[in-house]
């Protein structure tokens, strides 16, 4: 039973995006699309035909499957409602981050492969952001890993008792900035528009259509919910089930979904209250996140708090 928990992420990921959109619309005084709209979009895209540029190579065709399957593998490493995971001892946070990086690498290649200016622009920006985000994300995860004495996600979840120290607050704030950058949300990228001058993630997907686009979008939703889940696992794992009977699984599912909705609300709040930053100001924000993560690691290692 616990081995199918990754299906929760895969099934609910578009819904989470719909919820964020709905929260955002309500905060801006609009009615907004319904929360199931991402599902309708995905179904419609799966039915449409593919349009592939003549000059693109096999990389362009194979990328959606690589992106989707690498994200899928990453979800199997993450404890969602129980502390046991499908991959057991292989569920390592370093492996997880770099499996996600594999998908990103191919996405950037595909952006270049189609040969349009916007694709190359998107790839270049995405890789710049990735370089800046990765140290912040790794260091904040390392703080949790050191305090748990293991880089295995289920061990980190189990050692939740020691996770209330100043350095974890710092790591959490760095991780939130990293999530915002990774999911392409507002201070970094605008998920709602395809404005040529500012887009990062959309730029790389511009040439995709039909089921390829659907897979890429779905993978993006899954990645977003996956990162939320990692934040929950590491920083507030309260309520996660350690046994596998139906009652405890049901309660932990309910608690998990509540936490996800809360994070979605926070994301919508940040998106509604902030303005998008200029691209060349991003190093300042992400450098700040890096410094926070560094400080959290330093104070944990040196002072033990």
């Amino acid at each position: 039973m616990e081995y199918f928990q990754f299906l929760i992420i895969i099934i609910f990921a578009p819904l989470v995006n719909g919820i964020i959109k709905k929260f955002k619309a309500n905060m801006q005084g609009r009615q907004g699309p319904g929360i199931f709209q991402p599902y309708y979009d995905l179904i419609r895209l799966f039915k449409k035909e593919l349009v592939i540029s003549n000059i693109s190579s096999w990389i362009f065709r194979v990328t959606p499957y690589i992106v989707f399957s690498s994200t899928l593998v990453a979800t199997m490493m993450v404890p969602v409602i129980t502390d046991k995971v499908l991959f057991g001892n292989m569920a390592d946070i370093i492996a997880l981050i770099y499996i996600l990086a594999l998908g990103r690498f191919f996405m950037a290649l595909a952006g270049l492969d189609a040969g349009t200016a916007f694709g190359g622009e998107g790839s270049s920006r995405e890789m710049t952001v990735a370089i800046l985000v990765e140290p912040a994300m790794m260091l904040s995860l390392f703080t949790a890993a050191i305090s748990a004495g293991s880089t295995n996600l289920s061990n980190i979840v189990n050692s939740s008792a020691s996770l209330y120290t100043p350095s974890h607050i710092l790591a959490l704030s760095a991780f939130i900035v990293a999530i915002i950058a990774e999911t392409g949300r507002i201070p970094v990228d605008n998920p709602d528009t395809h404005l040529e001058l500012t887009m990062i993630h959309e730029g790389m997907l511009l040439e995709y259509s039909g089921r390829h686009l659907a897979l890429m979008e779905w993978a993006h939703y899954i990645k977003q919910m996956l990162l939320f889940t990692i934040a929950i696992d590491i920083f507030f794992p309260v309520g996660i089930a350690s046994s596998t009977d139906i009652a405890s699984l049901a309660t932990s599912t309910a608690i998990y979904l509540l936490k996800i909705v809360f994070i979605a609300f926070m994301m919508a709040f940040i998106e509604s209250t902030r303005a998008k930053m200029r691209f060349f100001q991003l190093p300042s924000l992400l450098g700040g996140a890096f410094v926070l993560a560094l400080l959290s690691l330093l104070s944990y290692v040196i002072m033990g708090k």
Partner: protein
Amino acid sequence: MKEWIQTYSLIDFLSMGILLTTIAMNALKRLESCIKAYTYNSWLLSMLIAAVAIVAEDNHLYLASLITLFSKGIVIPLFLKRIVRRMKVTHDVEPYISNTLSLTISGLLVGVVYVALKKGIFVAGFSSMALQISIAVMLIGLFIMITRRKAITQVLGLLFMENGLFLIGFSLTYGMPAIIELGVLFDMLMGVIILGIFTIQIKRAFASTDLDKLSILKG
């Protein structure tokens, strides 16, 4: 209340907050938000003193906490805000080094302090973190003073340094006698007022608060 503060190590969190608001000063560009960072810094300092007062059951510390809140948390920020509004400047000009670099350097400063104090003097004070953090705050304040061009941001650097110094003294001695604290605070207040007046004079004479212009000879 006392047990609650100790079990949740509230003092550590407050000192970490003081450090964070100081580091945030490096990343902020608008003068008003810099002043806000200082205000939060002083409020956290005052809360920290109150928390120590509860733990140590020392009544004179409540007074110190109130004085800090009143002078550093209310009077000085209001005064600085008035100056900023009178000068009609909202943005700090680019500091000598970029924001990212100054953030990184202040992070490194904290690291240096942590490492330097790891095997140095050990003070069995109220918190294992407060001394390290206070020295780091002082160094970052000094760093802000060195790297900023505007008079107001340099004053803010001085104020951060003073908060750090206060915390150093406090974490080593559980607070100096009230009369000394009052004297220091009064000094500070006067200093800020004089510097504020200077700033306005500089602005009047040079039409800018950029301190580099002071080195231009006037004939």
